[in-house]
């Protein structure tokens, strides 16, 4: 029985405890230096320059290090690609460094194969296991070793290449779902150069974009974002005009002055329609001289004909062509959605033709082909390995998967963020094939769908903890080299892949040891750059080597009248009666191709157009939605002939009708708690189709159906879809 005295005692104690509970005092122990570093003021931060590896663009970064911890990443102002700017994914790199689920010890399979159940083992045991595998494969069948990575460049690529060569296996495959195969082939056909050009957006007056979401994804979003800013604002009397043709109003298209929806896969016909008008009306000197082209068949590609195929009106094609022709210098760009159709080569060649007719190749405001190999000529035969490889590797992956299925491989070394088990089409049956390889070793910082299939996982440092060099694929004159360095001391027990390969080669002995004769990758880098007149310490301080003056451009040997690209229509799998909509998938701004899905900052970044967070969605236009009796927010099952998933509907007011669009990146099953189970994986809807000329992946080659389904929960969006605020209300 509680009397008054007792109650007050308890009451007082509770109050006292409550007041006490919230206090967090400053740390009790003060730890000084043993020997203070020179030129260091306590509390001041140090900034280290390095390279960002959150996407293949390879921007230069500087990272704030405060008392040994990385606090903030910023763009490196000295770097030619991004000039001190950085995108959301680059900023989120800190969460990859300090991720709670980052691998810190080697893992060995502790359950059924492919189960993703591991136990932690020490490095000695892990390396022994690795060496046992490598030695026996080397002794018995060296060609039975497969290395499957993302496209590498810089000296780490050299290390991998030398290792495989000395080992005796030709099976080194690099997979990038967003490879630029069609671009490379089209550029070779049109300009005579098998490379990616630089687009001088800052100096152009007219930008024609064909399904190119270059401000949000693509080869170098920050570079293009910065260049776009300069196009609009750096010249006092020129703002430039930007016209975007594409299947949906993307973030990039929203910045365009004119957005013209086109049916997917028909970009080439739009371009030919524009070319037709340019040549017919002799709008530019090059167009005036293109009589051969006209007679070869361009005269058939009238705007009216184009209008029927593409959904763009003839009047619009005429108007854009006239404007493009009379507002030179102008530049035309084609993007991934145009490239990854079965007729991608045609689409891109037609767009390339526009640059030829504009006469802008090698001129300011147009495109140019820097001599990317010139910077590395002194590296001799291996120079090409240092450069970015823009190919997707699709045919090689296909072949590798077939071989895996046939049991041709005894061991596989996997690395890279492109996650083939997540990003390859389901008909590849990648997981099944991979598990036929008796020993799978992954080099990774996180367990994703692919690394979870391994027998052994070797933890690698994140890019913020590694030495390395990198050559950006675009955004510079061709000779910039970015140098990466650890911005913090690696604090997990990790070893980089080149270091493990070097150590493995040493132990294997023979030609392998001779091919990689250094103590560490860092030692190799120092040797590689020594004696080239480069002060490596100074270069690291700046973040790289950025020559002011580029070497001469590569000349474009193609002279004479341009050739007419052979027209081809895009093919889409699936019976239109059963699957009425064309599927358009795009890398999301936050999650890219899926690698950003485990970072909470990126999951919580609202999509620019859909404004959704933490989940994906499917977009259809209002007429399409009405025809399917769908409302905004409904749950649907999206099915293609290859797979199905569930998603919420977002009725997009500016998307080509008859198209269903989905962002890529969600739908992970194994990538940590922030990534897992946030919707379906749109990669699983995709066909294994190929672009006809290059055998690159044709992602936009299937139809889908949307069927209303009951789904739990709702799509969380920051902008309310209905009755949303009107822009006029905030003015």
């Amino acid at each position: 029985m509680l009397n008054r005295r007792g109650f007050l005692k308890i009451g007082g104690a509770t109050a006292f405890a409550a007041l006490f509970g919230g206090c967090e005092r400053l740390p009790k122990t003060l730890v000084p230096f043993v020997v203070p570093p020179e030129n260091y003021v306590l509390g001041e931060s140090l900034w280290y320059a390095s390279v960002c590896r959150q996407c293949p663009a390879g921007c230069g970064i500087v990272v704030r290090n405060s008392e040994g911890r990385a606090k903030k990443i910023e763009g490196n102002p000295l770097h030619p690609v991004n000039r001190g700017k950085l995108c959301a994914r680059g900023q989120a790199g800190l969460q990859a460094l300090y991720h709670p689920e980052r691998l810190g010890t080697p893992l060995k399979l502790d359950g059924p194969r492919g189960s993703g159940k591991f136990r932690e083992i020490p490095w000695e045991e892990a390396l022994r296991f690795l060496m046992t595998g490598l030695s026996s494969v080397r002794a018995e069948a060296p060609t039975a070793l497969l290395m499957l990575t993302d496209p590498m460049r810089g000296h780490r690529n050299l290390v991998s290449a030398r290792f495989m060569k000395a080992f005796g296996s030709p099976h080194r495959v690099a997979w990038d779902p967003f490879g630029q195969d069609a671009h490379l082939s089209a550029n070779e056909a049109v300009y005579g150069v098998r490379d990616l050009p630089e687009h001088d957006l800052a100096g152009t007056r007219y930008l024609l974009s064909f399904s190119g979401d270059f401000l949000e994804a693509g080869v170098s979003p920050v570079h293009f974002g910065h260049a776009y800013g300069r196009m609009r604002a750096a010249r006092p009397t020129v703002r430039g005009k930007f016209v975007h043709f594409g299947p949906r109003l993307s973030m990039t298209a929203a910045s365009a002055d004119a957005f013209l929806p086109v049916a997917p896969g028909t970009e080439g016909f739009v371009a030919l329609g524009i070319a037709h008008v340019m040549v017919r009306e002799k709008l530019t000197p090059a167009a005036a001289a293109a009589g051969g082209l006209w007679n070869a068949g361009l005269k058939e590609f009238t705007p009216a004909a184009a209008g029927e195929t593409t959904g763009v009106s003839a009047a619009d094609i005429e108007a854009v062509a006239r404007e493009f022709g009379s507002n030179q210098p102008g530049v035309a760009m084609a993007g991934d959605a145009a490239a990854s159709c079965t007729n991608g080569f045609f689409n891109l060649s037609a767009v390339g033709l526009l640059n030829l007719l504009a006469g802008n190749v090698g001129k300011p405001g147009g495109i140019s082909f820097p001599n990317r190999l010139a910077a590395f000529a002194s590296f001799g035969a291996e120079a090409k390995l240092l450069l970015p490889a823009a190919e997707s590797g699709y045919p090689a992956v296909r072949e590798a998967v077939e071989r895996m299925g046939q049991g041709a491989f005894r061991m596989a070394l996997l690395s890279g963020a492109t996650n083939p088990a997540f990003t390859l089409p389901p008909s590849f049956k990648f997981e099944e094939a991979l598990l036929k390889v008796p020993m799978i070793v992954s080099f990774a910082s996180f367990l994703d769908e692919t690394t979870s299939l391994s027998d052994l996982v070797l933890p690698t440092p994140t890019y913020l903890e590694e030495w390395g060099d990198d050559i950006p694929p675009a955004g510079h004159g061709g000779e910039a080299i970015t140098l990466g360095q650890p911005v913090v001391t690696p604090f997990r027990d990790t070893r980089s892949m080149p270091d493990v390969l070097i150590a493995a080669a040493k132990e294997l002995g023979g030609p392998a040891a001779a091919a990689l004769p250094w103590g560490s990758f860092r030692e190799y880098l120092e040797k590689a750059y020594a004696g080239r007149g480069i002060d490596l310490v100074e270069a690291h301080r700046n973040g790289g080597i950025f020559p002011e003056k580029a070497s001469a451009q590569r000349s474009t040997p193609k002279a004479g009248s341009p050739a007419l690209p052979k027209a081809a229509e895009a093919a889409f799998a699936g019976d239109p009666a059963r699957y009425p909509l064309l599927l358009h998938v795009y890398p999301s701004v936050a999650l890219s191709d899926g690698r950003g899905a485990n970072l909470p900052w990126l999951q919580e970044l609202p999509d620019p157009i859909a404004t959704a967070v933490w989940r994906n969605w499917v977009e259809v236009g209002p007429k399409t939605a009405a025809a399917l009796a769908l409302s905004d927010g409904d749950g649907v099952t999206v099915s293609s002939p290859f797979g199905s998933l569930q998603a919420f509907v977002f009725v997009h007011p500016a998307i080509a009708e008859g198209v269903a669009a989905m962002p890529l990146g969600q739908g992970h099953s194994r990538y940590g708690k922030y990534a897992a189970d946030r919707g379906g994986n749109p990669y699983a809807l995709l066909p294994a189709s190929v672009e006809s000329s290059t055998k690159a992946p044709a992602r936009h080659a299937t139809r889908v159906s949307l069927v209303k389904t009951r789904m739990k929960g709702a799509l969380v969006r920051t902008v309310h879809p209905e009755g949303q605020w009107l822009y006029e209300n905030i003015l």
Partner: protein
Amino acid sequence: MKRRWAMVIDMDLCTGCGACVVACVAENNTPTVGESEAGKGRLMQWIRVVRYFRKEEHDETRAIFVATPCMHCEKAPCEIVCPVYATYHDEDDHVNAMVYNRCIGTRYCGNNCPYSVRVFNWWDYKREKPLDEQLNPDLTVRSRGVMEKCSYCIQRIRRGKETALMEGRPIRDGEVLPACAQTCPPGAIRFGDLNDPESAVTRMMKDPRRFRLMEHLGTEPSTVYLKKMRAQGR
């Protein structure tokens, strides 16, 4: 000399990429709230990119992005309603200051803000180790029950002032940049001192494209916008 910080957001350059959002989150120790809290409208980002659809030329629907940080109003509706003076107009820098220790969580200020830029810490958001190693030591990590909002990266302003003081010179234009302005790839966000007649923002204030959000409310924001342009006709 007192400063009058202002921000100019050029909507003609803003592409809506959201780099500013994540840069601000990284700089200012902003918590992530998760899907269910986000569903209740409790996202904690101090700058947000609001997407409007509107019908433009040829009756076509187009999107426009409005990056919305705190307006730092000269006549701030949030300042006059706080019962404990936790938010006030800083005299040295002319920014709207938020003092976390004083805040008692009435949320009246957030209610009164017409731009909805104030966010409230509904919970003590857990930062799983070692994600907390990334926290910026230059500013407070807020606990449950306090309001927070964009501060024009006051910690960077302070550092800029200290550096200038130590070097015995005034702050140079462009030296102090909030995280959003520093990272914006097209350079849409500009920041500077209006009391400096040579600064970029002083010049941009005279731009005929300049407008303020909900100007008719008379809040006199320091964050101003430059109208988006669209090349007409085809």
